[in-house]
């Protein structure tokens, strides 16, 4: 897949499953994701996989579950983020954990409990009208505020159930799954090139990260080695995706704290970035620029000069705006101490990516497991200790500055040569994974192809899975009007987790 990412497969028996995962937990490994594949066409049942990130690379613990096997031992007591993954696993693959929350997560009623859309024999489900059981908070003066799925602004749909006393939030319960559109099953219906386009649309704001992760998995299976120039151009696209999202978020965060000038200024800079993308890469959002073997774009010297100039303009502009944000008492008053996720809680919940870095967990794949070209770039990992909105703003500013520096560095060191490996005969089939630090955090794709080159299973995983539960904690004790600000400071994906 690449020069640095080591992937270890660890098949275990039912008895070894939990001890193996406990050992990983004790060693400080982080849960990446949990998924299952239907192997009944091979005369087996389901193959359950749990992927973990450890210092040297990725380890995938694999448990075969024959048809009719007893529920597998739950792992959410070790890795709390697994709680929703376990529920989704039952909703989609029909694989049940032992104990835990029995409510559906992804399934709303378009199909019934027991219909498993990711089984190969699934032919559409029976609607199930059972209402969802929200947790009720009782007590004097407690009332509920139900928000969504359609929100007041231009954001993705989801439901938030606040239990409040006056304005103070006692509890937030999230209900997601509204934009579930059957992505994992859809992968198996598409040829690899179309599947790569689908991967770029798992979460459209992270198109480059998902497409790159998908391509890494596919390139591993097909034994394709990506030319150095292409890896640099991929990184250039990924950093521009990070810059675009951070610019948008910083503007929106200013706006949510009542500073409209911030929104106008940052949205102007984001638009400038998109216009240069259109000029240089042929699309404001180059969603399909990363392709198997390399990239589908070329960079002319004139294009490179334009990008270089823009990186330096943006560096100056954002530095000035940062000084304004930092000195603005009204904004700092809203940011500081708001939506706090202390480091200890973040570690316990397994929070990841940008949100983790703002709670003092300085982990970034570009530093920890750098794939080319990051191995040659000495990326500086941003981090802040506060765990509040202010810290998430600070991390965005730091990462913005670092991405602008990296962009310049990538252009200065851009190697000559091909931008895409020559097309190859279809691979004999196999299994591969891709792991990329997108702007929210680690984006993971596991891909399995059949001997005819078709996709047997593709599991894309967005880092938002690990951070949504932390948002429920971050709002506790704050007031309802602070929720939009706190939510924006996380800016998590709905589409990426609803799938």
């Amino acid at each position, binding site marked *: 897949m690449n020069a640095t990412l080591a992937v270890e497969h660890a098949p275990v028996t039912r008895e070894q499953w939990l001890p193996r995962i406990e050992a990983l937990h004790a060693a400080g490994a982080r849960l990446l994701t949990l998924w299952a594949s239907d192997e009944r066409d091979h005369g087996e049942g389901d193959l359950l996989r749990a992927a973990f990130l450890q210092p040297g690379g990725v380890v995938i613990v694999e448990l075969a579950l024959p048809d009719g096997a007893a529920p597998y031992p739950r792992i959410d007591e070790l890795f709390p983020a697994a709680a929703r993954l376990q529920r989704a696993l039952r909703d989609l693959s029909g694989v049940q954990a032992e104990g835990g929350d029995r409510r559906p997560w992804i399934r*709303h*009623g*378009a*199909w019934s409990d027991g219909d498993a*859309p990711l089984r190969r024999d*699934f032919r*559409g*489900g029976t609607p199930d009208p059972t209402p969802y059981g929200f947790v009720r908070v009782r007590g004097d003066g407690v009332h509920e505020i139900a928000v969504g*799925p*359609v929100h*007041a*602004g*231009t*954001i*993705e*749909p989801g439901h938030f159930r606040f239990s409040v006393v006056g304005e103070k939030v006692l509890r937030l319960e999230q209900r997601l*799954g*509204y*934009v*579930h*559109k*059957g*992505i994992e*099953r*859809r992968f198996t*219906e*598409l040829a690899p090139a*179309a599947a790569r*386009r*689908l991967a770029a*649309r*798992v*979460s*459209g*704001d992270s*198109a480059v990260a998902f497409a790159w992760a998908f391509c890494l998995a596919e390139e591993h299976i097909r034994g394709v080695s990506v030319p150095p120039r292409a890896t640099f151009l991929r990184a250039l696209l990924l950093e521009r995706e990070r810059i675009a999202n951070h610019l*948008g978020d910083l503007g929106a965060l200013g706006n949510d704290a009542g500073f409209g*000038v911030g929104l*106008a*200024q940052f*949205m*102007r800079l*984001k*638009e400038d970035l*998109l216009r240069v993308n259109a000029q240089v890469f042929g699309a*404001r*959002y180059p*969603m399909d620029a990363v392709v198997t073997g390399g990239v589908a774009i070329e960079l002319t010297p004139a294009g490179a000069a334009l990008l270089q100039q823009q990186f330096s303009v943006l560096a100056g502009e954002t530095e*000035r*705006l940062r*000084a*304004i944000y930092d*000195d*603005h008492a009204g904004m700092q008053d809203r940011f500081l101490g708001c939506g706090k996720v202390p480091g200890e809680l973040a570690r316990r919940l397994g929070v990841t990516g940008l949100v983790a870095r703002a709670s003092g967990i300085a982990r970034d794949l570009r530093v920890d497991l750098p794939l080319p070209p990051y191995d040659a770039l000495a990326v500086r990992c941003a981090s802040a200790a506060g765990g509040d909105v202010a810290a998430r703003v600070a991390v965005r500013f730091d990462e913005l500055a670092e991405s602008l520096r990296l962009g310049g560095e990538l252009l200065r060191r851009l190697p000559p040569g091909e931008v895409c490996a020559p097309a190859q005969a279809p691979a004999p089939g196999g299994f591969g994974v891709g792991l990329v630090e997108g702007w929210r955090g680690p984006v993971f794709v596991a891909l399995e192809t059949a001997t005819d080159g078709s996709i047997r299973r593709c599991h894309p995983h967005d880092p938002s899975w690990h951070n949504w539960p932390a948002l429920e904690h971050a709002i506790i004790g704050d007031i309802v009007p602070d929720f939009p600000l706190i939510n924006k400071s996380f800016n998590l*994906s*709905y*589409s990426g987790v*609803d799938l």
Partner: protein
Amino acid sequence: MLDILKQIARVGIVAGRRQAEAAPGDAAADPELRAVGRAPCMRHVDAGSCNGCELEIHALGNVYYNIEASGMKFVASPRHADLLLVSGPVSRHMREALLRTHDATPAPKRVVAVGDCAIDGGIFDAGYASCGGVADVIAVDATASGCPPAPEAIIAAIERALES
């Protein structure tokens, strides 16, 4: 404060922005809609989008497109809206919310399908979890194609919907 004013003065008025159209929607076929002119109150509904189209809908408000200068604005309730901007294939889980939002929007109302998925389901297609395009669920007056569609294409589709 001085830094803020300096920054505003330094950037100045960004060129290239849209000019407000003079004709107040005489072209609208529906006489009641003529009062809206080219200044509709709009509500966005993400019915299953990947979030790509939302990025371009956000851009409508930036200083370059500045739709509010020509009277177009987003409102926080469908009851205040003349027009719905709907993105994404319609997921089965969002179908009811979309129908309810559409019902809550007072007549005369217009619907714009934003993006390739909203037009026909796009790469997601119709399946066990997706109903396909917006027109498979509610009547659509105009479409903006693209993945995601550029802000100009969205504005043009809004204007076409108002004239329909």
